[in-house]
């Protein structure tokens, strides 16, 4: 088996509070091969963003900590490295695109400046060379008149354009992996499609791997090679995009798929929803964390937590109900 680009094993992370440790991410394992896109899907509060910040080793700056597990990037465990060494990887071989592009850019520096900065810091480029490369990057992400745009400030651009700048910034150093945390959530629907298209094209052309965090199953369907579904801090199902959409195993995933508003259904039929809400981290139910909301819950579910078990080839699900009847999807 080829070496994985990213391998997260049993990652546990969260926040120390007055009432003890809040475990926002609970023994999460993910893996991603070079050139692939892995989508981490879940509702808000499922721990997706904390996972991405932990992988970037940015959690320390948000008041959080990694409490256990490994994050192997090309075989090197990032959790073992001091920040000084992580800085050489972060923003260089491993980069990030954030949710709200307008607030993610520094208002007092030009777009070109902010892209060029990465190149100067990581690649040791001269200011002139870095600027030229920054203009090239803007052209690459489809910004018209890049020479002019490079000299503009974030407030002079639209949200979609800002996100292109953020993506250009993330791509500038030719990274091996981009983590995109809800990159289209803050944007208009038409712009969302453009940004997703851009990410697809860049992935094809540059062979960059993408870890895409999203709450939107539609986005995952369009982008993912593999999908990991997170619920209340844990991965509940993981598999290829095809397998997840065609034969979902976990009742939560099934619920998520059924609650996508369709265009084919009959008018006036009520949209399916999963009853209840995601539990607070400090009040997780015993046993399976999904059982209070699960329509198929059994007696055993409240007592014992189901492990993430291989249900089919490369398709894992954390549910006691291993033979989910086909009819339920």
């Amino acid at each position, binding site marked *: 088996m080829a070496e994985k680009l990213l391998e997260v094993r049993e990652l546990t992370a969260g926040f120390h509070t007055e009432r003890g440790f809040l475990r926002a991410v609970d023994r999460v394992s993910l893996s991603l091969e070079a050139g692939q896109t892995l989508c981490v899907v879940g509702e808000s509060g499922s721990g997706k963003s904390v996972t991405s910040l932990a992988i*970037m080793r*940015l959690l320390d*700056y*948000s008041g959080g900590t990694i409490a256990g597990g490994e994050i192997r990037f090309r075989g090197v465990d990032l959790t073992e490295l001091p920040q000084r060494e*992580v*800085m*050489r*990887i*972060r*923003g*260089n071989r491993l*980069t*990030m695109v*954030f949710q*709200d592009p307008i*607030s*993610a*850019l*520094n*208002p*007092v*520096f*030009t777009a070109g400046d902010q892209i060029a*900065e*990465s190149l100067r*810091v*990581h690649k040791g480029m001269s200011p002139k060379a870095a600027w030229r490369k920054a203009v090239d990057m803007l052209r690459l992400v489809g910004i018209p008149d890049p020479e002019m745009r490079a000299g503009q*400030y974030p*407030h002079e651009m639209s949200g979609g354009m800002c996100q292109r700048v*953020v993506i250009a*910034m993330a791509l500038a150093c030719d990274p091996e992996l981009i983590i995109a945390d809800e990159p289209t959530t803050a944007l208009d629907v038409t712009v969302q499609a453009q940004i997703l298209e851009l990410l697809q094209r860049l992935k094809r052309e540059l062979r960059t791997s993408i870890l895409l965090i999203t709450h939107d199953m539609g986005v995952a369907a369009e982008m993912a090679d593999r999908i990991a579904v997170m619920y209340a801090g844990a991965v509940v199902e993981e598999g290829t995009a095809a397998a997840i959409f065609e034969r979902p195993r976990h009742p939560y995933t099934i619920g998520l798929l059924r609650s996508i508003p369709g265009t084919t259904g009959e008018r006036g039929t009520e949209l399916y929803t999963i009853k209840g809400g995601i539990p607070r981290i400090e009040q997780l139910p015993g046993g399976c964390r999904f059982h209070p909301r699960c329509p198929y819950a059994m007696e055993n579910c409240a007592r014992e937590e189901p492990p993430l078990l291989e249900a089919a080839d490369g398709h894992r699900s954390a549910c006691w109900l291993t033979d989910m009847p086909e009819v339920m999807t």
Partner: protein
Amino acid sequence: MTEYLIRRTLQSVLILLLITVVTFILIHAAPGGPKQIYLSPNLSQAAAKVQEHNLGLDRPLPVQYVNWIGDLLRGDLGYTFKNHIPVGEIIWPTVGHTLVLMGAAWLLTLLIALPWGIYNSTSEYGLSDQTASFIAYIGFAMPTFWFGIILQELFALKWNLLPLSDMWTMGKEGQIGDLLLHLMLPVTVLTIGFLASYVKYARSSMLEVLDQDYIRTARAKGLGEGRVVFRHALRNALIPIITVLGLDLPVLVAGAALTENVFNWPGMGRLFVQMAVAREYSVLMAITLLTAVFVIVGNFVADLLYALVDPRVKLSRKGGAAA
């Protein structure tokens, strides 16, 4: 830009004009008008009338105001009632002296407060932060004249290390070293007073900026903390600090009346107090007017600095700096 400057200048002139009216009215409404100070009670009724007429004090107030403004526009600030000295001759040297004192105190304050505030923002509630809070309480609570007297008592009288007061030692006028020695105590008093608020401003402004998304982006780029704090955060944090600087600029000229009096510093503050006691109206009005000019110029400079630091601020046609 040019249009902005012109509009801004016209506005300033209008404001100044209003200030002259208000100043004039207030001074003349104050009890014990110019007549009582100038006219001796021993003067006969007829002689007093002649004096009044010569000084123009018998004319209606609007006429007196127009005369005063007319003189002002020709650069004539008037004469003192007492010795008939041109007001300008009295005021201009004191402006320089005050600027030296306040400039030194301000510069020292900024040099200490900005780095200290920035440092405290990166180590919230640490020892350094607590110390700053403690000094802030002292700085706010302690009357400057009392603190000044204590310093004089210790450093000048008891230990004989520094000069007690004045700007120069007699016979050493113009020597920089002598001036610096004389600056020590008053500058210390003023700096402790300013320092408190500026460290706090710098700290809270930095804290707010360090919480922003773009700081996370800067870290995600793999930048070192030094670059994150000094390049990405500081420039944004300076924006609110400039506001405070602009508002405080007038203090440079007028604010140190107490300190100047304690240390017998020949500046505008001391002059104002002396002239108020002597009821020299023309001097008081000139100082008030000058202070007003500084306020207006201070705000103007602050707006220009905004545009320099924050690209979102455009000096637009619509008056002030708009975000």
